[in-house]
């Protein structure tokens, strides 16, 4: 028995953890263990990677299988981490087509959550760059899925939260880059309307995202820094700069749980104020930022989830369709800021629709916030979720720990098709996580 939780450390569940170190044993475990879900590096925030009865640790599937430098097609087992991929291929001039906010995730996890990055509005999710995958089904078969082969299963597995079977390996594309540096432009938005407008204006940039000061209120509600980024070419680096800088590995860390009083309205407000001012000073200049600091700023702080104290935190990420996006985001921010204990890094971003049956992205705005767990949090989240449902939006399952099954059902119209497919392949009840149990998938 092992204590299992997601990155938010809520909920925490004790359960058996079985490890697989090769493809065949992983496939066999998928069929043999009832109520099982595969787990990678445990970076989903809530209960997605905790099995209902059994959890299958897939990080032993960590072998790379092949790479074609001409097409950028990389084949790996599902437990290979994004950190490993970047460390291996960036020095050779390749970078993944899509990266989420941490590099401590596995290929299988990225496919199952159909993760998105700061370029999703132009270049799609991770799943959009997957050519094929090998899937272990509950009846002990292993099938190859692609857009041409077992296409429905392929679409259901991308964003399917591991509930169609265990992803064993996959082929996906990397893109060529000349350097590991990002040319970043910062724009200051004094309020939410300006932020939304800036995100639209910068939509042609490869990467664009807004960081919001959640605690700003009144006329400054939604004040943001909009960060635009492009891969730097070699000739854009100052002479003498290393073209492919190494990752700076967690040089600072949070050694233990911070006492929860450390994180209160005053300290968070001070942090947000500093971050905003610091960013504003760099406004409208192009600065060169190394890849890790640009894409994975929090990876530099080991165990940053301990900042939120022993009780843990939830990350709340919703997407709101364009029609009501601005007004609903504004309403959510109002409620969060009057709630007080807001989040260090809240993020606002434009999304385009995703391609998986259960993919999170849809045309609209997505807002992601961390909120430390407290007694008055659940009613607040329920209120916010109601706003999301009313606007026709949905919640990101990789982050979710709290939504109701009603909220979930309302947000995922292709759920019936997903459930039917799960029935057909015998996955219902067999492939099951605490998340699928909570939401009745």
């Amino acid at each position, binding site marked *: 028995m092992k204590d299992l939780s997601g990155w938010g450390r809520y909920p925490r569940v004790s359960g058996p953890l079985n490890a697989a170190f090769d493809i065949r044993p992983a496939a066999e475990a998928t069929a043999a263990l009832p109520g099982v879900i595969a787990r990678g590096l445990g970076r989903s925030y809530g209960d997605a990677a905790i099995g209902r009865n059994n959890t299958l640790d897939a990080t032993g599937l960590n*072998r790379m299988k092949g790479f074609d430098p001409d097409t950028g097609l990389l084949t790996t087992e599902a437990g290979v981490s994004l950190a490993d991929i970047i460390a291996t291929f960036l020095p050779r001039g390749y970078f993944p087509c899509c990266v989420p906010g941490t590099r401590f995730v596995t290929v299988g996890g990225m496919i199952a959550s159909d993760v998105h990055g700061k370029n999703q509005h132009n270049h799609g999710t991770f799943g959009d760059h997957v050519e094929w995958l090998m899937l272990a089904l509950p009846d002990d078969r292993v099938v190859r899925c692609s857009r041409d082969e077992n296409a429905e299963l392929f679409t259901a597995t991308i964003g399917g939260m591991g509930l169609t079977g265990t992803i064993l390996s996959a082929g996906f594309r990397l893109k060529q880059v000349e350097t590991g540096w990002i040319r970043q432009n910062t724009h200051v938005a004094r309020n939410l309307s300006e932020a939304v407008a800036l995100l639209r204006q910068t939509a042609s940039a490869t990467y664009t995202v807004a960081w919001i000061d959640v605690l700003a209120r009144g006329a400054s509600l939604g004040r943001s820094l909009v960060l635009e980024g492009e891969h730097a070419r070699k000739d854009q680096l100052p002479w003498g700069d290393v073209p492919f800088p190494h990752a700076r590995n967690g040089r600072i860390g949070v050694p233990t749980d911070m006492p929860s009083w450390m994180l209160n309205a005053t300290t968070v407000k001070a942090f947000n104020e500093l971050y905003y001012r610091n960013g504003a000073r760099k406004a409208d200049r192009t600065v060169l930022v190394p890849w890790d600091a640009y894409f994975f700023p929090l990876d530099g702080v080991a165990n940053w989830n301990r900042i939120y104290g022993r009780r843990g935190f939830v990350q709340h990420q919703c997407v709101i369709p364009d029609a009501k996006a601005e007004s609903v985001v504004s309403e959510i921010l109002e409620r969060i800021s009057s709630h007080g204990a807001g989040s260090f890094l809240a993020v606002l971003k434009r999304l385009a629709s995703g391609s998986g049956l259960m993919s999170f992205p849809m045309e609209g705005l997505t807002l992601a916030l961390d909120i430390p767990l407290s007694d008055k949090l659940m009613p607040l989240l329920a209120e916010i979720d109601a706003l999301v449902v009313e606007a026709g939006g949905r919640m990101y399952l990789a982050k979710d720990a709290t939504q109701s099954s009603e909220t979930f059902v309302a947000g995922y119209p292709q759920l019936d098709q997903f459930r039917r497919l799960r029935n057909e392949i015998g996955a219902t009840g067999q492939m099951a996580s605490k998340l699928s149990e909570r939401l009745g998938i």
Partner: protein
Amino acid sequence: MSDTDQEPSQKSLLLVGGTSDIGRAVAAAYAAMGWKITLAARDVESAERNAADIRTRTGAHEVAVRPLDILDAARFETFLDRLDALPDTVVCVVGMLGDQQRAQEDAEYATQVMRTNFEGPALLLEMVAARFAARGRGLIVGVSSVAGDRGRASNYVYGAGKAGFSAYLSGLRNRLAGTDVQVVTVKPGFVRTSMTAGMDLAGPLTAEPDAVAERIAGLQTRPADVIYVLRVWRLIMFIIRSIPETIFKKLKL
């Protein structure tokens, strides 16, 4: 990964135990230095999985897999004869932790654990040493274990095998001292691998396979005799060896 890998001066590594996690890491480290790699293993398919991984990571193409059963000493000569060339370095990471309880009850199983950890590797490296001595140079690295430093109730069948292997390496080193054939004993301590999966390993005492590999690859420029991968293990094992037997036998270790 330079394109000059193919020049005749390219060095070669024979890695015995090509399915192990430490073996994979060692082979990858040598491939990254431009070496030609041969992985020897009984389970060829599983070793091929590691070979593909190393080729993909390093862009090196010269990673070969050869079948070798460490318990089949009769075939060692043929195995060595059939290698493309006598390697510059041989690293043996073969080991079998086994299940102590089962080894106590099942003599055949205990025999397998002891032979895998001691007899097979020792006999193979003896033949390698002879060929290296005839050539006049070579590096032999044997991965043994801190478990061989003193027998303990929890794993003495494995520990005894490793103790035998450590003693063998020590003797070989002594015999070849003064020649250009070096013999190195590596004692990794706890390593996070599939062999130790599920065990509660103390973080500060546990090395990653890559750290072990780095030390072994480093032997090309920094010669050594006996290496504890994490230095703290040298101290721990010094203390453990120093405890008088009258006390030691009563400890739960």
